[in-house]
């Protein structure tokens, strides 16, 4: 997996000798995603965590570390110190004292929690590590939730000017339309496809199919984005179990290997970007991931991208090399990103239909790829899927995390 040129040079290691270990996923679990008024954050994460541990066939006393992606416990449920809370209620604290760390990067918190878990195992520090993500968003009213989400952008220089989170992505959409001729209908096709996929995902928040007309006739939130162009507010948790690749077959016949973990940053404010319609953090994280896996976009069988808004999915497939820049809308309208198409995108239903509990999303994306690569995705299965990618974004693109997962080591 990861070759580490700096360490290699420092210790003058011979070519081919790697200080890092390959890593595999041996257990996964999502809770139901949706408005789960009778479930608390701790209940959700414990359900996901214990489910992943059971799926992996390991025991709590074997766990060396826990990472929890969570964007805004403080705003959503007035609770910080989420790592400790989750370890405690998972039974990992009082007797076992397992180190537990919360990871925050807005909507990319889950993707970064996964990356921290991978680096822990790869470094040799831990042998069995749980990476989880969770958000409980529906305990506060939707305007308070929107305000909490807007904190992923620049509060002083975007928020104070009256920017909302949909407003920022709407400005990306306006320019994408202006430069490339992308249409509202093409944006709507993203939502239609993701609802079609979500209908086959038992955990999805929305299982109803929608039409282009319904999207276009839904309430305008920030022109040109309608409410059906936006991902919803969701409660949910996801978790997975990581082990060294050489140990993976002890636990399962179908380990899924981490072929690449990559991350990149960009300016916090949209107005400071090199190009408003390109997420450079996505481009760079994607490039780093392809290099690490020694692969290209043509080697990927399916991808879970960060479709917090329909325009975000178009930018993502362009920036990751699955469509030419500016052609995301055309490729989508022609069905190339549908299941059965050239490159299925968001088979889980994506953030749009499966739901977007912000801290959980990056983990859920990996759970979906694992489920697909194991061949356990039922009505949304991509036939013969060998290799998948996840793409998780924080804010309007200030953080991006990209992972490549494969059945082959």
């Amino acid at each position, binding site marked *: 997996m990861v070759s580490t040129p700096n360490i290699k040079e420092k210790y003058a290691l011979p070519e081919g000798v790697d200080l890092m270990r390959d890593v595999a996923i041996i257990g996964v679990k999502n809770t139901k995603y949706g408005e789960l008024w009778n479930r608390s954050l701790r209940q959700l994460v414990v359900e996901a965590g214990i489910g992943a541990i059971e799926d992996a066939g390991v025991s709590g006393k074997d766990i060396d570390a826990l990472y929890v992606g969570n964007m805004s416990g403080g705003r959503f449920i007035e609770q910080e110190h989420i790592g400790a809370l989750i370890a405690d209620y998972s039974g990992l604290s009082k007797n076992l004292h397992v180190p537990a760390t919360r990871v925050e990067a807005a909507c990319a918190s889950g993707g970064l929690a996964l990356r921290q878990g991978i680096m822990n195992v790869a470094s040799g520090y831990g042998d069995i590590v749980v990476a989880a993500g969770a958000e409980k968003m529906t305990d506060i009213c939707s305007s308070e939730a929107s305000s909490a989400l807007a904190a992923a952008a620049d509060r002083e220089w975007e928020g104070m000017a009256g920017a909302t989170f949909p407003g920022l992505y709407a400005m990306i959409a*306006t320019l994408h339309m202006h430069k490339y001729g992308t249409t509202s209908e093409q944006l709507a096709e993203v939502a239609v496809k993701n609802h079609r996929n979500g209908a086959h995902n038992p955990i999805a928040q929305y299982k109803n199919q929608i039409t282009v007309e319904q999207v276009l006739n839904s309430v305008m*939130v*920030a022109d040109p*984005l309608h409410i059906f162009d936006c991902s919803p507010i969701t409660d949910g948790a996801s978790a997975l179990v990581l082990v060294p690749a050489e140990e993976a077959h002890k636990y399962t016949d179908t380990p899924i290997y981490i072929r690449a973990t990559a991350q990149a940053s960009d300016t916090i404010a949209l*107005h400071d970007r090199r190009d408003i319609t390109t997420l450079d953090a996505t481009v760079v994280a994607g490039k780093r991931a392809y290099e690490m896996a020694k692969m290209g976009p043509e080697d990927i069988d399916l991808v879970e991208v960060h479709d917090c808004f329909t325009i975000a999915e178009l930018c993502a497939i362009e920036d990751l090399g699955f469509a030419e820049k500016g052609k995301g809308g055309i490729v989508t309208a022609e069905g190339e990103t549908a299941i059965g198409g050239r490159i299925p995108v968001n088979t889980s239903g994506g953030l749009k239909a499966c739901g977007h509990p912000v801290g959980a999303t990056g983990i859920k994306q990996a759970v979906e790829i694992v489920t697909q690569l194991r061949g356990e995705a039922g009505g949304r299965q991509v036939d013969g899927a060998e290799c998948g990618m996840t793409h998780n974004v924080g804010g309007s693109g200030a953080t991006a995390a990209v992972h490549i997962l494969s059945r082959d080591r």
Partner: protein
Amino acid sequence: MSVPRFWRSLGSRYNLEGTHCTECGEYYYPPRDTCVNCRRLGKIESYKFKGTGEIITYTIIHTAAEGFEEQTPYALAIIKLDEGPSLTAQIVGNPKEVYIGMRVKPVFRKLGEDGERGMIYYGTKFVPAEA
């Protein structure tokens, strides 16, 4: 937003005061104390922007942020100032008349407010330069 937090950036919000790196020539608004190009080696001084610029992209906000509810629908834009940097601001007037490439200039206006008895924030919005 707290009073001190708003007060700290008052000069920038009222008068479009930003910064300029004399080492590489880059202009910064919102102001930065560290040059993105030169980092530690940059020489930053304050700079008052002319305020004129061009709309790069925009949206019409229908569901407002907290404190902006009374202003909907309002046009929000990314404006590239003539000196180079871009900022996010509202465009005053009929939101339907906003377009990409429109020349704009700054005006002093109420930005938003914190609740019914809360503080009212003033700052810079933009209007068409021809108007």
